[in-house]
């Protein structure tokens, strides 16, 4: 039975008629009681504090940095940086490279998710039946998602070398030498990056869709078959709608992760040639750690944070409703 996370934050599953003991937040004796910290709060404190230090405080610092022109290369500490009102945001509005990075990232997310999902659905359909080496097949197919992303990217670097196996295979295919330098071409350099991402994460989509398909109520499908519906119709009218929750989650989570894409871009091109493969993470890395314009990039980071969070919140509501 698939349970999709549409509930509130702390719901529990209660078996009907079982004894249900509602836990009372009890303050234990000793230090916690004296500090007035209820026991349940104390339990979340370590996690909460870690998040505060590593995530919350830095986010607050981003708010400050975004309105300064902090460039550490000017021998200034970050709290001494020059306050410049909203000029960073103004400059970002006109910064073609930033806008391009955003658009490019959205494009990458769209293409990668689209391809991953299609391949995953197609593959999952191949796996609904049983055959003797099915488990081996699944194990091999999910191998890509268990490779360290940096090593996968390095492998793809070697594959797409202008004297690598991909070009070799194309050479054999078209009958004349093909030594195209994928990673140096502004138009095509994005392809190896996207292929690396697709190669690595299609197996995850595949697993999720497969899990979803395995858990479909069989009686609906059987009824449709008995009524003489064609496989295509069954797929479109029964299977796909029932898979929607799983697909929804898969698409949402993978979209967020793909939006953050960094490792393949860094290893394969660093955003070169000339910024042609700069995704938003690469843009921010270059801006902050190559050009050291950290105040400016903090403003960019703020814009990205707001964008991502609002889209997530906007999308998660219909998702909650759907399930």
């Amino acid at each position, binding site marked *: 039975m698939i349970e999709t996370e549409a509930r509130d934050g702390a719901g529990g599953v209660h078996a009907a008629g079982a004894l249900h003991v509602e836990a009372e937040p009890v303050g234990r004796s000793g230090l916690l009681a004296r500090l007035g910290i209820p026991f349940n709060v104390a339990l979340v404190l370590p996690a909460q504090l870690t998040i505060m230090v590593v995530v919350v405080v830095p986010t607050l610092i981003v708010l400050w940095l975004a309105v300064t022109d902090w460039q*550490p*290369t*000017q*021998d200034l500490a970050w709290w001494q940086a020059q306050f410049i009102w909203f000029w960073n945001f103004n400059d970002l509005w006109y910064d073609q490279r930033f806008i391009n990075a955003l658009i490019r990232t959205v494009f990458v997310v769209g293409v990668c998710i689209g391809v991953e999902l299609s391949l995953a659905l197609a593959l999952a359909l191949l796996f609904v039946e049983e055959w003797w080496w099915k488990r081996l097949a699944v194990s091999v197919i999910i191998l890509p998602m268990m490779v360290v992303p940096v090593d996968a990217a390095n492998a793809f670097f070697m594959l797409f070398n*202008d004297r690598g196996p991909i070009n070799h295979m194309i050479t054999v295919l078209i009958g004349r030498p093909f030594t195209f*330098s994928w990673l*140096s*071409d502004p138009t095509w350099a994005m392809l190896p990056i996207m292929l690396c991402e697709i190669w690595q994460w299609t197996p995850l989509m595949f697993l999720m869709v497969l899990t979803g398909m395995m858990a479909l109520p069989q009686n609906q499908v059987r009824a449709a078959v008995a009524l003489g519906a064609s496989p295509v119709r069954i797929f479109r009218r029964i299977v796909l709608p029932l898979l929607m929750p799983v697909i929804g989650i898969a698409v949402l989570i993978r979209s967020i992760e793909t939006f953050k894409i960094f490792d393949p871009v860094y290893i394969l091109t660093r955003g*070169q*040639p*000339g*910024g042609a493969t700069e995704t938003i993470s690469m843009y921010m890395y270059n801006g902050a*750690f*190559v*050009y*050291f314009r*950290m105040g400016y990039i903090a403003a960019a980071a703020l814009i990205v944070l707001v964008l991502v969070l609002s889209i997530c919140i906007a999308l998660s509501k219909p998702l909650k409703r759907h399930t």
Partner: protein
Amino acid sequence: MKRLFNGIGPSRRDVLKAGATGLAGFAMSPLLGRGAHAEQWALKNIHETAAAKAKELAGSRNVSLKIMQPSGSLGNVKPVGDLWTKATGIPVHYLEVPLGEINQKVLLEAVSKSGSFDLALPATFGIPDLAESGILVNLDKYAQKYEPTDYQKDVLYTIGDYYKGSLYGYQTDGDTYLMFYNKDWLDNADEQKGFSDKHGYALKVPDTWEQLDAMMEWFHRPDKGMYGGALFRTQYFIAWEWWGRFHAKGFYPLADDLTPQINNDAGIAALEELIAASKFLYPGARTNGLFENFEAFGKGDKFADIGWGGTQKFLNSDKSKIKGRLAFGDMPGGMVNGELLRTPYFNWGWNYVVSSVSPDPEIAYLFSLFACSPVMSTIAVRDPGGYFDPIRGIHYKDPQIQKTYTEEFLVAHKHSMINSIPDFYLKGQGEYFDELRVNIAAADAGTKTAKAALDDCAASWERITRRMGKRSQSVQWHFLKANYPAGIRDRLK
């Protein structure tokens, strides 16, 4: 242009002194008035005295030195480090970072101040940014105490060691950009006759870019498997060739008031000639990186290549088919006011710098004094697998080094080193050059005209200068201008 050959000639120090005192209103050059100590420290055993002094300073404390070095340079650094430890008892630890990252890592240290290294080997063109960020120790006070008067005399390129008149690190690597030619083709009598008949001058190692371009055109016969040149048209390298072509026309990149001159007629002409020459390059010119370039030229089917000592290390190895059949020359120059002007170009280099977070900057400085001493630097340069190319006059006489590079090459290398113009040592060098790279590459690809590309670049340069602080940049620019090699300085406008 006279060949200033064997270390006899104006010493770097004299040149810098002249430059520094030429600055109006600038503080006294730190190079004048070295302290009494330095006179007692002779150059020939400076490595011993520096080590002894470091040992004395360390005393009974538990001192160690951490050096951040670019990956691949361990062979240059470790032998010297081991000898240091033997002489001083101070252990050395090596932190390796990818060579494309080291400047950023040192700059990052200005932010994080983690104390992860005492010394680092950043690329020379990053020193202005590093100095401005406060992460580098100004070494003047230590140099005054310890540097022998003739320490830098034998070093053929020291411009990058100084920023706004102060010393920030000693050069370790002779990265002058020079030319390689297919000697068989050059010496071929038929080719020589045919060429001189057509062009009216002899086929030999070219003096000017015009001649080089003509020769590359002459030899470019792709249907016969011969190519004019293996020069670079990748975005990263292309700007360096343009820099050379531009200076050869007799101009500085900036006027005295920091207005860019790169988009003047000379700049546009230089770019157009570069684009025209692209036709005579081998197909991989637009995509191949450094090592593919070595292999490609090593096949022996191309006329000209451009590179560094590292290129020669490959071309002189068993992996190259052209071994022993090479001619060498400075980067070509140009005719300015009827006379030949050569502007060889030093476009990389690694300097030993001292971190301002280091607990023992004085000892760290003494290490750099040790490592760049005549004896120790020779040991470092000897490593065939590392980065360091000859930088001191005595390196050229070392038999092992001669064997790696060939004597013929060393003659050309030394000549190129002595007269090398510096890179654009200003704060924000990376940004300036990136603008140059993007625009020049666009012009070469045909998406912009040469004029538009350089105009856009000049406009960006003005913005960058404003952001970096015009006054600060002006101080360094005038210092830098005054330190261009003596013979070239007066001929550039």
